């Protein structure tokens, strides 16, 4: 698919974290692969920038390809200031972003991110240094671009909630997925492994085969014969 080393390590981390923490990432991955498999890698464009705000255009690609860039960009700004906001427009598979936020939180960044999912809005918050986020779904009351993702970053979660309160107003809470539930999923995954269905396995196998080189008698010499 043309993923480079930085891309595929990050993408693998996102998929594994999401799956082991109960977010059905394999289903999302299957959908993502159907698209990624048909095109060369598309990375995001930085289309707008000021001191505290960025807009990245994902150009219809997956967060698997542009999630790391988005998170790195916003935290580079926070290091120089106190907070920053980023909107990633025109992107898919947004749930995968959570792993990048969790990883960055270990470096003392706090995040709130939200995106539209059908008629609801998903909000994910994580405090600086926390190992797991808070994941909630609300009724939507604001106009939200269907394929956009907003990230707010600082060093203190409460300060972010306060500073960006107008942009974080949602309707009633529909459901939440607690840290305890995430941890239970994770422990279960570690203990019992994770199941991959036949179709996804076959797809991954087919993709993996693309990097393999046909074996010949001559090529065997290149391994020690």
């Amino acid at each position, binding site marked *: 698919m043309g993923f480079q080393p*930085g891309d595929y390590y990050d993408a693998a981390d996102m998929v594994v974290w999401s799956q082991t923490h109960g977010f059905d990432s394999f289903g999302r991955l299957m959908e993502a692969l159907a698209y990624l498999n048909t095109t060369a890698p598309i990375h995001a464009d930085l289309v707008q920038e000021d001191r505290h705000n960025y807009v990245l255009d994902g150009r219809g690609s997956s967060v698997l390809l542009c999630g790391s860039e988005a998170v790195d960009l916003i935290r580079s700004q926070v290091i120089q200031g106190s907070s920053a906001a980023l909107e990633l427009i025109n992107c898919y598979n947004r749930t995968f972003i959570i792993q990048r936020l969790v990883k960055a939180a270990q470096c003392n960044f706090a995040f709130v991110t939200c995106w539209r999912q059908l008629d609801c809005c998903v909000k994910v918050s994580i405090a600086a240094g926390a190992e797991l986020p808070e994941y909630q779904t609300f009724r939507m009351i604001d106009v939200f671009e269907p394929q956009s993702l907003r990230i707010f970053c600082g060093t203190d979660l409460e300060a972010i909630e306060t500073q960006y309160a107008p942009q974080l107003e949602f309707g009633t809470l529909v459901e939440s997925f607690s840290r305890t539930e995430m941890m239970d999923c994770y422990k279960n995954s570690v203990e019992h492994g994770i199941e991959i269905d036949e179709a996804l396995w076959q797809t991954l196998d087919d993709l993996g085969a693309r990097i393999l080189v046909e074996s010949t008698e001559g090529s*065997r010499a290149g391994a020690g014969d």
Partner: protein
Amino acid sequence: MRKYTHKTHNSDDLTILQMRPASQVMQLERLGSFHQSRLSFMRTLVRRMVAENWQISSPVFDLDEQGYGTVVYQVEAKYGTFSYVLFSHYLDPDNRNDRVIADQWDLTMGLCEGTVDAEQLDFLRNNVPKQEAGRVDSRVLVLSRANRSARTFEYVVNELAHGHQPDVDVIAEVGYLYRTTAAYGSGKLGMADWEKVWTKHRDFARPFAAEMFTCYMLRHFSMQQADHLASQRAPKSAVALDEDIKRYIGIGNSTGLGMAPFLINHPLLINQWIEMRETALATVIAASAFGVDEVILTRLDTATQRVIQHLSEIITTDERQSNANLLVREELQLLHLWLQEQGAVLATKHYVWESLTQYAELHWGVETQEVINTLLIELYPELVDRLEEYMWVDESHQVSPEMPVAELLEVIEDKYDWALAIDFSKQESIGTFWYRSAEKMEPRLGQTNIDMGMDKEMPLGIGRCVRECYDRVYDYNQTRSKQNVAHFIVQNPTYSGIVGRIQTMAQSRYGDIRENLVHTDVLPIHLLRCKLSFFGVSKFDPRSRLWVRNTMFQGAPLISDFGKLFVDDWQFPIKPVLTSG
């Protein structure tokens, strides 16, 4: 010249250690001259098993008169119970192949958590013999397989059946009855992930501990099977293998290019291993600040003579290794004479080990230098062994997106000067490429512009990647010097991986291996030997520049030695002198 300093891990001990610099240590030829040390994984595993008196029984020992069947060993370690399940199969000698591309073996094994019931045993019987073609579950920690030595196995069984012990010289020539050709773990083929192993199973919560244990149990089985076959063939005349010969029997190992990508893809882990080994060396050198005990000098001399004998007993057809062994023996002989003549004076000399290592660096070969370093580390278990707890590290790369691009350039110039010094415009600098073959995904080397597969090259040429990244950052910096790495990555997303690696490794003490791995004359065998030395193998016998035979656990205690008084000095094994018969 030692120019870096480093505080020890013991917060009460503020000794400033003189660590060897990365420019010296991370040269591939030097890494390829490393030997087993007290921190090697086999050594730490054996220390743990003996000290904790692991109990090993065999609730299932179902072998027929030809040695085929099923064996289950139950292992009661300090913190948990494990089962080592082994299947012994008939293998047509024509199909015996040590390469990863083989699909049949004499033995296949799995290490499982807990006990194994009949249902799980059936499941394992259906999958373990298939190895890569099978699937297991997260109750399995390691899968492995092994082939008999055509030179020793039948010979040993026949001798025992006739009531004789095998000739030690024959054993010495080979060193083992079986060769293992792979030991898989860490989530491969459906097995338990490393996360599970290190969080749940404290007995194996160190790198490769479970894999090394699997090989150790193979060694135990190999000798038990030989005894079994001999008694089956000649119940009246057969004798059991002598205990001293048993200790001298190890497990053979063939390692090829499959191991090489690991060293490149796990730079933080390799850095950690090397840093601990170098910390051990610096610690023992510091320990000689005010002279050394004469007993220690005597132990060094004894060990030196043992290495000389050990090397003289290695039979290798590889001319380079053979010459290297000869040179090491000659130079160690000089060390032996020096210790004999100067012993009394040396005992009172300040920093005698620093003088010795500096002398070796000036006058002796790299292999000899590294043997001496290993021997020095052996002398101070009380200072060194605690470092075994630090052989693991979190391997996640951390990008510093706020770093100005100009600073990134400086980092590359400082930490990757070795890569920038390579002229990649020369054909020989890019004369090799690495790829994975469709044949069981085996890593192979190809010749640039000659062999197929360049478009699917594995990204192992870190030096070249750094050079390309540097050039791109340099151009970027000409017009956008105020921008940071995050901006650079957005504009140049294909460089995110190498930038993350550079920034991460720049913070480590030893950094990346300093070698152009795509050079026409690259010697991957050095990579293999480096990793194998941390495993703890001995008797390196290169079969080409691409693969090496070696011996595991030769000289190590037997299961019957567990719980007994134990002097941990089984490195550099030599032929036993039999005390019986």
